[in-house]
């Protein structure tokens, strides 16, 4: 009887320790402490997709495992997208690409439109082409633009809706804080 109680207590202690590890080991940031416009968004594993970029190179989301992913949905007709895109480029130039992979997905526009837009607004970025809009439908961003932050295990952790200056200190530091885990 005594040994059963001891085993149960040991089990409970292990469970508590495991919970503690899980809670502290992930990219934990309390909602209230998040920069404006960024929400916790734990929907589990990121739905995988495969798309071509504007150069015809195929990309598979699962190939990014081991790094955080900045997954950004946009369209050229969306005003905030136009304002935000140069700040994404600026962020990407200040982040270690081995730790954070930038994946842009254009929602249902053609290659010429994407090419012209990026050429003017953010020439150093490239974008995947979701030409029929169906990947965007699966991901269901709340609006355009929307950014999802996916952790190195492929789990969606945060959602950022609407445009913002990603190059602002508060956002840059938030992103960098994720990469330390």
């Amino acid at each position, binding site marked *: 009887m005594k040994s059963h109680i001891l085993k149960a207590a040991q089990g409970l202690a292990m469970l508590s320790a495991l919970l503690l590890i899980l809670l502290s080991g992930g990219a934990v940031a309390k909602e209230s402490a998040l920069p404006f416009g960024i929400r916790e968004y734990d929907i589990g594993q990121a739905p995988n997709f495969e798309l071509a970029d504007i150069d015809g190179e195929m990309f598979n989301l699962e190939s990014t495992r081991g790094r955080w992913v900045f997954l950004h949905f946009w369209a050229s007709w*969306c005003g905030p997208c136009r304002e935000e895109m140069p700040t994404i480029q600026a962020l990407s130039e200040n982040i270690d690409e081995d730790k954070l992979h930038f994946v842009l997905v254009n929602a*249902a526009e053609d290659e010429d439109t994407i090419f012209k837009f990026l050429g003017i607004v953010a020439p150093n970025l490239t974008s995947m082409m979701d030409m*029929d*809009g169906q990947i965007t439908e699966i991901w269901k961003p709340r*609006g355009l633009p929307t950014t999802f932050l996916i952790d190195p295990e492929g789990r969606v952790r945060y959602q950022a*809706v*609407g445009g913002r200056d990603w190059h602002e200190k508060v956002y840059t530091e938030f992103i960098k804080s994720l990469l330390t885990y």
Partner: protein
Amino acid sequence: MLSLIFSAALAAQTTAPLAVVKEQLTIEFAPRTPEQMASFYEARGFPETMRDILKKQCFITVGITNTSQQKIWLNLADWKFSVNGQAIKREHREQWKQRWQAMDIPLRYQSTFRWTLIPETLDYLPGEHEGGNLVLPFSKGKITLDATFATGDNKQGEPIHIHYDQLYCAEDAQ
């Protein structure tokens, strides 16, 4: 869901915005003329059959900002429109989807159209601004909107009621 789509192209052609300002939220309305909308969709390559239908609708771009310290819930099912006391039925985005599917409209245009609509439901965090196009059947005269928003994390807060009777469908200049 063009939450955010206040596209530069559209913004440049906007008629004077209308607004409801409450302590907890602000709602801005910008009626769009059929010509503005046709131009917008034509520039995106929408087929003529689709544009012909859209030209006959009443487009109003809506922007909602949560100016309170609690969560506010948009649910278009709680928005009632009327003209001279007669209810106007707004088509749900699913009805639009079915229509486009029946017309065999390419998926990319269906998708873009959906992105330009205001979401059917959405929760707004304090300070958040989102919007999109509301599509109503075209009607003459002032449109009255009676809307209710739930509030609080679990929608248990005091609801916000809006009554606004200055909406209208913009028409092309003669």
